[in-house]
């Protein structure tokens, strides 16, 4: 096994692209909240980058990708990245340094945590948030990553496909967000006081960094650079575009006009949905996946509003539901002609694949929801999750960080 400079360059640069998605989430969410809370949520995203990066080096990578323990979790032999070096690893990265694979994966662990922050926006204690990251990333993310991608992971063995993290990242973050919003409760004044996005250009900036970085997320997940990464790149762009258009159409019909926030949300929904399918489907299939993403996530948003739980920035509706649709769509549209290392889905003569996908969806959703629920209940008991009422009224930026965003 020799290191290929092109593949290595590709994966490293894709890791950089994925890295910028996490602050991208911060800008996206930051623009959507009220002015008094923008720093707090950007800070949560930024600290996710810092804290999970270090945890990943110390134990996260080992738990996720280390030598398999019963299909459920990785072992301890790669703690501190010991033994993870410049040589390729036959299981994960046969043409690039093992270390390059490890850092690429680090960025996935980072962003998954950041995505959840949208659900408890405007009311989570910063200290409690840090404890939550530590526990959640270790107890929820690491095992799930192992199931799906780790050598020996049970979902991988089963044959469930997840090209770039529809299950591990998006369903996972979405269900954790749902649990979090139920436990922490609604924002003060929810449904009475206006809660208008305070800076839509910032939302646009976040969306753009996400779309841009998602090329690294999906195409980089090929871990080599050739036909598969190219396909992943193309369908990523196409699904994002299609879902943005779909969202605008629904908005136009329902509200009389399309909106910037709608277009941005739609694009993200499309990016989410194509993620598990990216290396397995054709460009035309990605158009179908994008349309589905627009419709299902839009409906999920409406459902949430009707049910009245306050997943403030729609993490569940966009990432949870978008991820589920994407995982199932992979079981429908996957085509072995696109990627000989994958398998075909329902439409290409292999209906059982849809079953595997459904197992993955259910397992991931249930595990994430339940364990997140327990973690948050415990943290809430021990130190409280929610800031004081007056702090929520004043805004988290001043109350928690003694800073004002603009002056």
């Amino acid at each position: 096994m020799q290191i290929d400079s092109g593949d290595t360059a590709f994966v490293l640069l894709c890791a950089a692209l994925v890295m910028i998605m996490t602050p991208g989430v911060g800008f996206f969410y930051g623009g959507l909240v009220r002015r008094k809370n923008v720093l707090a949520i950007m800070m949560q995203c930024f600290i996710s980058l810092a804290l999970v990066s270090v945890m990943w080096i110390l134990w996260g990578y080992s738990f996720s990708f280390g030598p398999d323990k019963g299909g459920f979790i990785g072992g301890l032999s790669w703690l501190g990245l010991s033994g993870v070096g410049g040589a390729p690893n036959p299981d994960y990265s046969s043409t690039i340094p093992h270390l390059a694979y490890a850092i690429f994966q680090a960025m996935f662990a980072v962003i998954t945590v950041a995505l959840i922050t949208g659900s408890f926006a405007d009311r989570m204690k910063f200290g409690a948030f840090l404890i939550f990251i530590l526990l959640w990333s270790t107890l929820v993310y690491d095992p799930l990553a192992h199931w799906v991608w780790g050598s020996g992971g049970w979902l991988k063995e089963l044959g469930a496909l997840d090209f770039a993290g529809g299950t591990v990242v998006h369903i996972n973050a979405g269900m954790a967000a749902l649990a979090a919003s139920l436990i922490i409760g609604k924002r003060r004044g929810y449904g009475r006081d206006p809660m208008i996005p305070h800076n839509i250009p910032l939302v646009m900036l976040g969306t753009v960094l996400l779309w841009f970085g998602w090329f690294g997320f999906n195409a980089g997940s090929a871990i080599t650079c050739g036909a598969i990464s190219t396909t992943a790149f193309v369908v990523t762009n196409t699904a994002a575009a299609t879902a943005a258009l779909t969202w605008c159409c629904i908005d136009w019909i329902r509200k009389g006009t399309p909106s910037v926030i709608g277009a941005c949300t739609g694009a993200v929904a499309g990016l989410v949905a194509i993620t598990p399918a990216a290396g397995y489907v054709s460009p035309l299939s990605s158009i179908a996946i994008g349309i589905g993403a627009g419709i299902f996530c839009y409906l999920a948003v409406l459902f949430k509003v009707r049910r009245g739980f306050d997943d403030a920035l729609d993490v569940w509706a966009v990432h949870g539901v978008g991820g589920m649709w994407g995982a199932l769509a992979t079981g429908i549209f996957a085509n072995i002609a696109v990627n000989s290392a994958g398998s075909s889905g329902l439409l290409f003569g292999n209906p059982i694949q849809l079953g595997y996908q459904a197992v993955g969806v259910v397992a991931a959703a249930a595990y994430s929801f339940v364990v997140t629920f327990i973690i948050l209940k415990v943290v809430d008991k021990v130190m409280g999750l929610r800031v004081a009422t007056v702090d929520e009224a004043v805004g988290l930026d001043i109350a928690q960080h003694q800073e004002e965003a603009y002056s």
Partner: protein
Amino acid sequence: MIKVEAIIRQERFNDVKNALATAGFPGLTTYEVKGRGRQMGYTLTFRGKEQQIDLLPKMKIELVIKEEDLDKVIELIRQKAFTGNIGDGKIFTYRIDEVIRVRTGEKGENAL
């Protein structure tokens, strides 16, 4: 001397401002406000959630004038700010005791 406070639509602001200058009333102070009146606002939908927006952006113009110009100024503002729809705005007037120009120390109407 009288202070006139007019709260008008933002999109009518340039016309009002220009007309005042043309009519010989250059001096004014202005800033953005949000207001609520009979026009009780409207409902926006963000991500499926309806939001009641009862405060609408308006422009506030303050100008201090001689008492004798009052009617002229009010007429002029009304004319330029008028669209005929709810939300066209309001004008308040009250008496000012003294005006001082910082640069020269002039007082009273001379300082306007």
